[in-house]
């Protein structure tokens, strides 16, 4: 007989793995606060985060974006990409600017880790016709700013502006905007807790964005 104390997640049998236990009201409250902070029109103290930390964050975000560019050619890139994210993470594309509360209004996309896994597996079936042929992408970003999450020493917030050129089936288009991130030191790794993609045209009709932005 197993006498160890099982965690709550092990105790119950969930039909859908991994269970999404963290997307609760407190998480949404936090998202709304973070979202407002990321979008603030303020001058931040560039020296408040030390150079080594800033470098580590820039490096992580470069890998994040490069792996997504590689996903069209090598599906494994998406699996590596997901390892950059915390177990309890969110990938969020608001349908307006500034981002409305996702409890009140629809987003273009709002995914927890489980739905990101769904999407990676779906793209890997070879039957996702919106990605046959796959979108090849080239992302350029610049203007990275990094600052500490208020009251925390293990968490940082960051944003940069991007353009993303997509080529699919002989047609190219440009997507643009800014991404906001929350990054957290978890054990010995820095991981992404939130990626918020703010498209400049998020109120206007979108094309086939069935790859990851």
């Amino acid at each position: 007989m197993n006498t160890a104390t099982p965690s709550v997640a092990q105790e119950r049998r969930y039909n859908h793995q991994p269970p999404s236990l963290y997307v609760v009201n407190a998480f949404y409250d936090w998202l709304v606060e973070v979202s407002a902070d990321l979008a603030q029109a303020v001058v931040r103290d560039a020296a408040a985060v030390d150079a080594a930390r800033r470098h580590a964050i820039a490096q992580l975000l470069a890998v994040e974006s490069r792996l997504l560019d590689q996903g069209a050619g090598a599906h494994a890139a998406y699996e590596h990409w997901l390892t950059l994210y915390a177990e309890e993470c969110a990938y969020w594309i608001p349908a307006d600017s500034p981002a409305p509360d996702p409890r009140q209004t629809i987003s273009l996309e709002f995914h927890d880790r489980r739905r990101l896994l769904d999407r990676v597996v779906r793209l890997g079936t070879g039957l996702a016709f919106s990605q046959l042929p796959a979108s090849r992408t080239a992302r350029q970003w610049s203007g990275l700013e990094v600052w500490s999450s208020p009251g925390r020493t293990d968490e940082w917030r960051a944003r940069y502006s991007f353009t993303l050129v997509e080529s699919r089936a002989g047609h190219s288009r440009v997507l643009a905007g800014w991404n906001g991130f929350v990054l957290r030191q978890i054990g010995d790794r820095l991981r992404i807790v939130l990626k918020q993609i703010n498209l400049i045209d998020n109120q206007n009709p979108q094309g086939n964005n069935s790859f990851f932005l």
Partner: protein
Amino acid sequence: MRTTNQRSTLPVPPVAPDPWDDLVQEDRVHRRVYTDENIFAREMNNVFAATWVYVAHESEIPEPNDFKLAWLGTRDVIVTRDEESVVRVFSNRCSHRGASVCREQRGNASQFTCPYHGWRFDNRGQLFGIPGKNAYGPTFKARDMHLSRPAQVASYRGFVFATLNPDAPPLVKHLGNAARYMDAWIDYNGGAENLVLAGTQLFRLACNWKLIWDNAGDGYHVPFSHQSLLVMTHARYGGGDMTYFAEADRSKMSNSALDNGHTAIDQRAEMHAESAWQQQRPQPGREPYQDYVAATYGEQAKRVLDTTVGAGMNINIFPNLALIGNQVQVLQPTAVGETVMHWYATRRKDVDAQVNTMRLRTQEDFPVMGEMDDAANFEECQRGLFNHPEDEWVDMSRHYETGKDVAAEDGIIRGLVTTDLHMRNYYAQWKRLMQANPTLCLARGKL
């Protein structure tokens, strides 16, 4: 000022000789219907002006002086709630030189000032201010210069429709037996007084609007177009959403031909057979939500969970309104080969915040994981139809010769879910409209 409405009648060029019987046959349609710019131009009059077109939901303009931009086909309109809370619809086209007088998607305003020469209109579309008015003479002053209004505007349980055709039958008659399906959908969502649109996802598709409409009643494509979703759902969760479409014609789902080109797919017998909630692919926060509902609603928990997810009906109100799951989809044709699709999410006033949040997380599932596969196929259809002029026909003969489309006890013709009855039914209405020479009127007198 004149006190009676002066109506100007728009010329609708007759098309002769009548090509419509050749273009739209019982079981197939000519490709030109999807690719011909002249046919599109005529559709903007004969379909998107001469019959009732959905323009807005009353919950989008809840307060006096609220407004939103909308359209009848390619015609731009402003929908307002005036100071007396009456819903008004008028053209977003200045009566002076044609510029739009409102350039914001939505807001609250008691008046609109044209940015070009500063002409001012109230939120019923009536002109009340012209800068330098003394420069205009009696001939001008005898003309009605208010913003033009559709001949008829009416609302059915919160859904606002308009038409430029003064001879169009009353809206309830136009909806006919589709109204009972709308009622079922609205009541499933808490009733008209509780349904609120909660934001929109917009997509631009490089295809004719009818390729999207063809699909709106297509119960045949699911296991093929959405194979990736079915394979993924099976691999990750051992089955779930939409698996009952695998052998769709053996299912209890049905496809109904309703009055005036409207149609409905009823999935309820399968989707709601045991639990719609259990069928649903997992949403963010699913497990804590389930616990919350169980703890809060007791014996009602199953019902609350089931009403969080789709209504199990696809109701298509020809030509541009589709009620799908818990969402409201609206088509905006912008050119013969381009359409903007609006997916409105819905909330309910009579449920708590957690339920509404989970409705949104549910509604965000399909657009990125399913709709884009549909869109890719529609765009490929458009390319195929445009690029192969010698291949003339688009087929809609599924279950045309099997004798499976039969009149039920309620008089409605129903077929198996994969029938092309939906296309055959709406195309019959489309042909009637395209053959007609309707009167299109703009009212621009003082209200």
